[in-house]
Each structure stands twice: as structure tokens, then as C-alpha cells.
């Protein structure tokens, strides 16, 4: 790298545009190329291209290179299935609507509980001592282990799914809110105090604005964690929902559909994380630098 730079400096004439374009987008070009190769390899496994190509050379030893779709499906099968589910039969939309609803309710509840709790325990030292052991214990627990309890408490219905999403999402939010308050610049607080600002006033004008980036970072984490809840909450069955669809398709050996569901959830997760990220950038730009 460094030697190349040195040589580059020595040359006066500019490289041709194509080379320059490549140098600027090397990462994207390389990434796309590798991704295409991978998809081709995958497709070939499923269609037996590689097995057919190698059979004249190594005979039956090539057979393992033909993998039935039940094991791996294939990019073309997944794309065709996605087209069918989204456009032709439109069967996935009702699942998406249901999952989106349980996700929104679960995440909403996590924000409604986690943020005030985190902010309060960041602000009141003794409260943080009191809830500390619970937060630590709950944080160390794989929250999904609570699923059997949740089912005992509220049954198989919508409430169970909302609760498991809540359980997964609430901690990142609460913990980031807590540390947000704690990291507020002490000097600022001191100055404000010396001007005789009240507690509530302090909280509103100094703590909250400086906490926003932390809160958003916590939210970004929670958005991903909560996605797990959609799938796990429906392990034991449900009439609708993307998780239920994945589960049902898996049990019926429809691997193509499983992949469609997995990709839908991945895409939704990325989209939401990106959304939070954009808000973070907006806030960053707008916030007066302190």
C-alpha cells in the first residue's frame, strides 16, 4: 500500500478513467464479483453443474456436488419463490402485516419501559443500585429461555410474541439510557447548578439532549435483537406471521420458502437499522456541539 502511494506520487500523468474508477470503487467491485461467484457456485450445486463437470474426471466421487434442494435450495428457486409469494399469490403480505404489528407493539413497549427506567436509574444513583442486580442478571440470561414461562403466563397468542420481543429489546434500550445519563459532562452540570437550575430543568435541558445519541445507539441494537423475537416467538406455532411461515415451511421441507422468510427478516432488520442510523446522523448534524 504505502509503496504504491510513493510510486503514485512520482508519476505526473493521471491514470486512465477506468483504472481510476476501479481504484475508487475497488471494494464494491470486488464485493459484487465475489457475491456473484458465490451465487453461481450455490446455483451450480443445486443444479448439478459441478457434479456433471467433474464426473468424467472423478466418477461417482463427484456425486456429493449435486445437492438436493431440500438441503440448500438455490438462488433461482428462492427468487422464483419470492416472486410467487410477493406478487403472484401475495400470500406473504398477511404474514408480514401480522409480524410487523407484533414487532411494533413489542418494541414500542420496550421503549416505553426501557427508556424511562434507564434514564431514571442513570439519574438516581440509589435506584441504579436497586435495579442493578436485576439488570445484570436479566442481561446475562438468554431471554428466549423465558419463552416457556411466557407461554404459561399468557398462552400462545399475540401477547406471547409481544412479550418475547419486549424481553429481547428492553435491555439494550435501558442500559444505553442509563449510561447516557451517566456520561453527561459533569462540568456542564456544575455550571448549570451554579446558576441555580432545578433538577427537572437540568434533566430536560442538559441530560436529555446529550443522551439522545446514546439512546439511538441503544435503539439500533434493540431493533436487531427484537427481530429474533419474531421468529422465536412463533417456534411453537401460530396461525400467521413470518416466523410461523418459516417454521411451517421448514417442517414441510419447503427450503425455498424458509430462505425467503429468512431474507425478508434480514432485509427488514437492515432497513430498520439504517433508518435509526439516518436519524442518528440527522441528530448529530443538528445538535449544538457542546
Amino acid at each position, binding site marked *: 500500500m504505502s509503496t504504491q502511494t510513493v510510486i503514485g506520487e512520482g508519476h505526473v500523468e493521471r491514470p486512465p478513467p477506468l483504472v481510476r474508477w476501479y481504484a475508487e470503487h475497488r471494494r464494491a467491485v470486488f464485493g459484487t464479483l465475489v457475491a456473484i461467484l458465490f451465487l453461481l457456485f450455490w446455483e451450480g450445486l443445486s443444479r448439478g453443474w459441478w457434479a456433471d463437470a467433474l464426473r468424467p474426471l472423478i466418477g461417482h466421487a463427484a*456425486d*456429493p*456436488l*449435486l*445437492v*438436493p*434442494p*431440500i*438441503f*440448500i435450495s438455490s438462488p433461482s428457486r428462492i427468487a422464483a419463490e419470492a416472486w410467487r409469494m410477493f406478487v403472484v399469490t401475495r400470500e406473504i403480505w398477511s404474514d408480514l402485516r401480522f409480524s410487523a404489528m407484533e414487532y411494533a407493539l413489542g418494541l414500542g413497549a420496550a421503549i416505553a419501559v426501557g427508556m424511562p427506567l434507564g434514564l431514571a436509574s442513570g439519574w438516581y444513583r440509589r435506584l441504579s443500585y436497586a435495579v442493578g442486580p436485576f439488570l445484570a442478571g436479566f442481561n446475562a440470561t438468554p431471554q428466549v429461555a423465558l419463552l416457556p414461562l411466557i*407461554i404459561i403466563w399468557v*398462552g*400462545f*397468542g399475540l401477547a406471547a410474541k409481544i412479550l418475547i420481543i419486549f424481553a429481547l429489546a428492553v435491555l439494550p434500550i435501558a442500559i444505553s439510557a442509563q449510561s447516557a445519563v451517566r456520561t453527561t459532562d459533569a462540568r456542564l452540570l456544575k455550571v448549570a447548578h451554579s446558576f441555580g437550575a432545578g433538577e427537572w430543568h437540568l434533566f430536560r435541558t442538559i441530560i436529555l439532549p446529550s443522551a439522545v445519541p446514546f439512546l439511538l445507539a441503544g435503539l439500533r441494537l434493540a431493533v436487531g435483537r427484537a427481530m429474533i423475537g419474531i421468529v422465536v416467538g412463533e*417456534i*411453537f*406455532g*401460530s*396461525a*400467521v406471521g413470518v416466523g410461523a411461515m418459516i*417454521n*411451517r415451511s*421448514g*417442517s*414441510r*421441507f*419447503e*427450503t425455498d420458502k424458509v430462505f425467503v422468510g429468512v431474507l425478508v427478516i434480514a432485509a427488514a432488520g437492515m432497513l430498520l437499522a439504517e433508518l435509526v442510523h439516518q436519524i442518528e446522523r440527522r441528530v448529530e448534524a443538528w445538535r449544538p456541539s457542546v
Partner: protein
Amino acid sequence: MPMTIRLRSLKAAISASILALPLAVAPASPSSAADLIPFKIGISAPVVTVLPVWLAQSQGFYEKEGLKVDVINMEGGSKGIQVLLSGNIQGMHVGVAPIVLANKAGAELRAITSTINTIPFTIFTTPDIKSPKDLKGKNIGISSFGAETDIAVTLMLQKFGLSRSDVTISQLGGSGKRLAALLAGRVDAVPLIEPTITIAKEKGFNPLMDLEAAKTPWIFDSVVVTRTYLREHADILTRFVRAYVRAAYLALSDEKAAKAEMIKRFKNEDPAVIDATYADFKRTMPRDAAPSIEGAENVIAQLQGAKFEIGSTDPNDYLDFSIIDRLKKDGYFAQMEKEYPIK
């Protein structure tokens, strides 16, 4: 399958090195077990239709055939088939319906025996559900999606003019687990098989629909293997089926032995339950332990009717009679009839 061969050798290599510790803790097996061929078979639930699998185990029939057989409860037929495809087990005791779905997706599974060629389910509901239309909005328990229970429930709903979206369907596992959930009030309706049918009746649940009375041709529980295994290990499978058929004949002829086994496996000593369950076995066990073509045809037809996507409609793409036929030709069934006269 081909892929799993590779995975398995990798797994074996790593597990041999890392799992040595926990294995060393396990009790040492007798030295005579060393030359027995290991064979693992999954069952979808502890119910009456797996009686021969169990009885052959506790009577030592497998060892006499040179096999060391492990019976693993999978709590659901389709999950068992997934595990069968992974190569964890060599056989799975399950119905033909999930095979049809799996083969559509590229698996190559075959049923080589049968312990019942009709649907034995009775669908039970809580006492407050008196007519089919009360099912709307209720929670119905099945073993796992794609399993026989799932298909039975789909058929029932269709018959009642309801659709799957009218109810919530929950995966609960085998018959015993479904009954437990019904007892606990976690679900409102479940399909059950003996011995849980009699227990559910005793507990006052409402038998909403008796599918067995309809004598619907089906292949409900059978030994299922991959075609590769069948091709490469026909000998091991023949030994397994010999022990299995012997156990079936013992159960048919020796009521006491069969009932003792059931009491042990079902952990239930209620004579009413055990009597009804044994009667059920005697009524439904095919004497040649063979899957019925008619049953397979009906499974295919019903799946098509219920809008499942299926591949081949030829029963021979799901059944394989080679092992049973060889035993018939060798006079094994005649020998069994002589050894275990059925009263």
C-alpha cells in the same frame, strides 16, 4: 444426503477429539455389544403404532439379529424426517404424508413397512365445543407442521368448511404432549391416538370427529429410510425388519407380553386404557407389516385435495416392498405364524 456424508465425517473427526471427555464418563458398554451393528430409529411419538419397535427392543430381538438399536422420540414426524435427512438416525417411524412432502423437495425417502394402514385419529375438544362451527377462533394442537396431525387437522377443517386461518395451530409434539396441553387448557382441540383416546374419553373430553371409524385408507406409521441407505444397507434393514415383524407377531399372539410393554412405555396402568389400546393394535396391525398401495394413493389424493404441492403421484415413488417381499419369499411370515399362533 451426499452433503451429510461429508459433514458427518467432519463431525466424527471433531467429535472424536472433543467429545472424548463426556463419553469417557458414560458407563462402559458390555464387550459383546462391540460387534453389534448400531442402528438408530426415531419415533414420532410414544403411541400404539410403534409397539413392534419397542417390543423388539425389550425382547432382545434386535440383538439376536446382530443389531444394537436406539429408539429416539422425536415428538413430531416431520422433525424426525429432517433428522433422518441429516444422517443422525438411519430410520424414522412415521407416516407416508410427510414423505410425499419431503420427496417433492428432493429427498428420496421410502416407506418399507407399516403398522397401520388407516387414519387412527380421533379429534378431541374441550367439552364446551359441541359442534364443528364452535372451532372457529380456537387453538388446535398438532405434533409438528407437515406431520400426519397437521394433515389430519387440515382435512377435518376442510370437511367442516373452515380454513386454517380460522383457527390457531400450535406445535405441541406427540400424542401425550397434546393431551397434556388439552388437560391444561392450553389448547381447545387436538387429534389423539391410543392410548390417549381412552384417557381423553375418561377425562370427559368431547370426541368431535373419529377419523378411524371412517376406515380411511392411509399409511400412518411405517419404517422410513433414505433410498441410498436402502440400496447400500439392505442387509441391515432386513435384519431390522425381521426383528420388528417378530415383535409384531409376538404382540399379536401374546396379549400379556404386549400389555406389559405398553404399561411400561405409556407409564399407565389403567386397564381400560391398556385394553382399548391393545384392541386397537390388534385391529389395525397389518399381518404382513406391509404398507398399502391404496393407502399411499389416498394420502397423495388427499394432499392434492388440501392444496399441498406434491411431486410424483405414483405410490411406488414413496413405498418400497423389497424387504417385506424378500421375507415373504423366504417364508418368514409363515414361520412367524407358526411360532406365534394368533388366537
